[in-house]
Each structure stands twice: as structure tokens, then as C-alpha cells.
């Protein structure tokens, strides 16, 4: 009786009439056929992915089975594996090996640097500090990639701030010692593989931190407590609980860092030696050299490597905790 007093009730039918019009009819239709709505929403992205993205990828792959006529420079559109054979020439194999090694090292370093940051953010940061974490990780992504790379060129240059800092700390011998090493060394950091490595790690680090943080966020805190309760030291808890449960995140992050490094052609061109990476090889083969088949064959390399990488990660159980 009190409710009736509060909400005066007019006699109402048990079934309300439709709201009428196009919108009403559409609402009813979508409710009756939820899959129709789903299909309608998925159609544009599926078209985009299917035709524009996958389609052009296959067009590219198809080109890798063509070859180039060395005299005329014209493309011979007959199926051949000759272009893939060219990949195994010493010079090209060198490029592939160099790029894969760099990508692996960048991924490893990113994972090692990202884990403590992600762990802090997932476990301890709350409220304002969490916001600051996201801002700190994302902020570098808001500025232009090229600007950041050129900034690093200045930082790493012989006359740059890093050399100045080390000189003032009387640590220049350390830098000189490192630069005198074969392969990783050079005239200055900005023209060495070490420089390329540093900038790669800097640029791709957010792509590692975020998925690792998301994975750690999903690990209930009481699993760490349970492990410790059962007698595991902090190191054992890390190896047996935290790391396996963070692994899907690390793998997700490493897909970014690894594949982005495999394909990048700007960083090694601005910072590093004159020796090529896969991205640069693709860029010069399809541009100046006009050898589209070889460029296409080169692009297949990262795809195949990533395929093997994911297959290996799956076999290692990286996705078991998903």
C-alpha cells in the first residue's frame, strides 16, 4: 500500500505496444535475430581485413614467386623458387641473421626491463600512481617516432649529452672500451649496433610493458601468498608461479617487439652502421633496385620466423594460462 501511494499506478497492459516506426521495428528484429546484428557489425572490419589487408598480403606473397630478368630488369611472372634461392646468398643471409639477432636481443632486453615496471604497476601502484604509470608508459607514444629517433641520434652522438655525461663522471674509458669492441662498437654510439639496439629497446618498450602488466594484473595476489605459504622462497615463487602466469603477456609483448624490430627500416638507417636490416633491404629492393620479387621474398622471412616463434611459444606452454 505504501508503494502504491508513492507510485500511482494506471491500469497497464501486460504486453506493451511496440514503439513503432523504423527504429522500433529494427530493435525488435535485432532482438529476435541477434546474429544478424552481429553480422552487420562485423561486416565492415571483416571486409577490410579480408580484402584490403589479407588480400594485399597475398598479392605480395604471390610476387615472391616471380623473378626478375637480370638484363632487362623486367619482372617475369612465371612461378619460380629462384627468388627464394637468392635469399640464401651470403650477403642476404647476413642481413637476415643480423636482423633476427637484433630482434631477439631487443625482445630479451625489453622483457627484462619491462617486468619490474609492469610488476610494480600491477601489484603496488594504485590511484594516482597508476595513472602516472600509464601516462609515463604512453607519453612517448604520443610524440612522433622520427622526432624521438633524431633526438636519440643527438643523445648518442660523439658530441652528445651521453658522452658529455660519461666524461664528467670520468667513465669515458668505459664507453671507449665498449666502442672498441668488434661488431657492437664503432666511432660513436650513434653509428654502432649498440646505438641501434638502445633506440629499438626505447621505442618498443611500451609494447612490452603493457601486455606484461595486463597479465600480472590477472594473477590473484593470493597465489603469490599461497606459494610462499607452501615454502617457496621469493625466487622460487617467481620461477614457478609469477613467470609462468606472466608468460602469455611476455609472449604477447615479444610478438610486438620482435616483429616490429624485424620489419623496421627507419631506426637502423638513422642510427647504426651502414650494414642493412631486413626492412632496409625490402625498402631498397622495391625502390631503387626495382626488384619487387626479392623484396617480397624478404618480407616473407619475418612472417615465417614469427610463425615458428609462435609455434614454439605454444609448445612451451606460453598460452596454457590463458
Amino acid at each position: 500500500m505504501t508503494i502504491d501511494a508513492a507510485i500511482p499506478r494506471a491500469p497497464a497492459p501486460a504486453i506493451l505496444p511496440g514503439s513503432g516506426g523504423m527504429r522500433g521495428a529494427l530493435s525488435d528484429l535485432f532482438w529476435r535475430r541477434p546474429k544478424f546484428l552481429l553480422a552487420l557489425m562485423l561486416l565492415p572490419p571483416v571486409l577490410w581485413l579480408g580484402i584490403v589487408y589479407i588480400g594485399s598480403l597475398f598479392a605480395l606473397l604471390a610476387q615472391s614467386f616471380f623473378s626478375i630478368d637480370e638484363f632487362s630488369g623486367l619482372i617475369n611472372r612465371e612461378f619460380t623458387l629462384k627468388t627464394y634461392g637468392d635469399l640464401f646468398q651470403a650477403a642476404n643471409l647476413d642481413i637476415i641473421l643480423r636482423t633476427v639477432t637484433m630482434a631477439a636481443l631487443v625482445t630479451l632486453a625489453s622483457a627484462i626491463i619491462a617486468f619490474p615496471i609492469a610488476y610494480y604497476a600491477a601489484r603496488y601502484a594504485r590511484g594516482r600512481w597508476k595513472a602516472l604509470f600509464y601516462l609515463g608508459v604512453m607519453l612517448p607514444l604520443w610524440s612522433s617516432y622520427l622526432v624521438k629517433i633524431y633526438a636519440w641520434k643527438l643523445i648518442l652522438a660523439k658530441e652528445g649529452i651521453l658522452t658529455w655525461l660519461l666524461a664528467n663522471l670520468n667513465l669515458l674509458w668505459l664507453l671507449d672500451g665498449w666502442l672498441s669492441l668488434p661488431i657492437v662498437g664503432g666511432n660513436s654510439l650513434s653509428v654502432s649496433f649498440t646505438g641501434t639496439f638502445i633506440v629499438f629497446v626505447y621505442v618498443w618498450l611500451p609494447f612490452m610493458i603493457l601486455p606484461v602488466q595486463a597479465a600480472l594484473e590477472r594473477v590473484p595476489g593470493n597465489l603469490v601468498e599461497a606459494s610462499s605459504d607452501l615454502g617457496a622462497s621469493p625466487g622460487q615463487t617467481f620461477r614457478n608461479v609469477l613467470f609462468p602466469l606472466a608468460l602469455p603477456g611476455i609472449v604477447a609483448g615479444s610478438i610486438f617487439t620482435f616483429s616490429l624490430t624485424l620489419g623496421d627500416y627507419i631506426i637502423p638507417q638513422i642510427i647504426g652502421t651502414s650494414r642493412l636490416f631486413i626492412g632496409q633491404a625490402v625498402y631498397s629492393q622495391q625502390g631503387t633496385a626495382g626488384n619487387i620479387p626479392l623484396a617480397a621474398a624478404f618480407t616473407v622471412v619475418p612472417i615465417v620466423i614469427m610463425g615458428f616463434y609462435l609455434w614454439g611459444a605454444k609448445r612451451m606452454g606460453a598460452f596454457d594460462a590463458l
Partner: protein
Amino acid sequence: MTSAVSFKKVSRHFGSVRAVDAVDLDIAPGEFFAMLGPSGSGKTTCLRLIAGFEQPTAGSISIFGERAEGVPPYRRNVNTVFQDYALFPHLNVLDNVAYGLMVKGVGKTERLKAAEEALSLVRLPGYGTRRPGQLSGGQRQRVALARALVNQPKVLLLDEPLGALDLKLRENMQEELKSLQKVLGITFVFVTHDQGEALSMADRVAVFNDGKIMQVGTPEDIYQRPNTRFVADFVGSSNVLPPDFVQRYSGQHRWGSLRPESIRVSGATSGDGVAARLVGTNYLGATTRLALDADGLRLHAVVPAGTALPAEGEAVMLTFNRDSLHLMDEPA
């Protein structure tokens, strides 16, 4: 005799919140000890202090005579069954159970054998290859129990272990836990907010409120002779009687407690007793719970099912034995 767990003036403050405040407590070896209290009363913090997840801000804790402050959880021979079980999702059941032995360096065949035995102890033999995600709540609970017991802890801590189970399963598990404790002889410390569970399972019960222990005693002590209004009300929803009312029947000006089942209700309108009006009846199956209004004092009575009852709103007469009126220590 050394206590299994001994608290001396133990406090755990979180800023201005006194989660545990100057608690003294002694748990005997081999005892089934329950910590009972509403949420936020400090019982779980006490458990975490024993496990080592929390460190006391003041006071000292010893486990079997050994000082435990500053000792990390992984160096305490104490294991916990967590409220939501905390099973490792990436390991199968057998590896979950064998985890404690694995980190202690026990060889693979030996630890898997021990884990299999622990699983049969909790009546889950052959479930080793499943993932925790494929088990029901009750089964997970048993796995968590096996995972703790396989380490043969000096003290087993159980944090509301039956909270997530449905009634039937909970009753089964209560019996099983109790018989398991008898067989193993391990000290069990059990945290619960369910007074029925505490009374039915424990050898002794500590009732917590606001970070303090209100009363420690056998279930019968706690139930029949509560020392404060809080305990009387929290354990078994006793009728708490104000000092003026109590004085009329006992001659003493003190707070009293009267169990609902000690009140007899009759339809008589004259004679000895407390005149009251029946306000409501709740049918509970084996018993019926009556809400009564005795001149502004709200009382509850529990009568066996099948008792002839006056209709709601009618005047009734309440009687009880003088000895069932318990006088509490709490000052009036």
C-alpha cells in the same frame, strides 16, 4: 606444555585502523580452534599473522615455542587453506598438491606419490591430471586441503574454507574436516563468521569483535554462558535482556541472556510469566521461530515444529526456568 600458537599482546594496526588490538591467545597442540566473528573483526588478520603474511605492529607471536616475528611465511611450518582456495591455474591437480614438496626439493617420483596419497586422503584419488578450472567448488576445496596437508604442517590454518560451498556440501565437509583433524592430530585453526560451523566443529572458540577477543571457551561455554551482549547476540542470536528486566527475575541488576529455545510460549492470558504479543512466526522446518513483543522488548523464541501456536497478533504468556537466564559479566 608449549602452546601450538601463542599471542602475547599482539596488535596489527593499519594506520589508524586497529585490525588486531592487543590480543592474547593460546592454542593448544592438536586442538581444533575456531576464530569466530563478523567481517572486519580481526579474525582473518590473526590467521594471517600466524601464517606470516602480516607482521605484528606490537607484541609477540610464537609457534610451538619459537618466536615467529620477522620470519617469512616460507620459513614457517604452517600451511593455509585459502578462502578461495588459491590453486595454481597453470598446474594440474597433482602438481598443485606436490608444489610444497617440489619447492623443498623432494624428488619427482617421491613427491608425486605423496601428492597422490594426499589426494586419496581427501577422497579425490585419480583427479591428479585435471586442471583446477575443471573441478567443482567442493573438489577445489579438497585439493587445497590436500595441498596444505601433504606438507605435514605443525599448524593448519583454514580461512573460511567452507564459505563458498552450498549447504549440503558444507555439512559434509564439516564432518570430514573434523574426522580428518582427529586422525591427523594436527592443530587446526579455523576462521569463520558462521557461528553454527564454529560451534559444531571446534574444541574451543574465540569470538572476535573490533580487533579484540571477546570470549574464548568451549562451544558450550560460548553458547550457554556468553560474557557480553555482543557474544550473546552474535552466537546463536540469544535474547539480550536489559538490567531492569533481569532484576525482576534474578534480583541482580545485570545484563542477561536467554536462549530462544529456553522460552516456553503458552496461550494463557493470566498466571505467572511475561505477558507478550506474538508478532510473527518463521517456519524453519524442524523448529518454528517466533518473534514476540513483551511490552516494547523484542524477544525471540524457538519452539519445536508441530507445537500448537496462537495466531499472530494474539496475547501470549512466556515462561522460562530461572537457571536458563544467564547473567553476563558485562557491566550494566
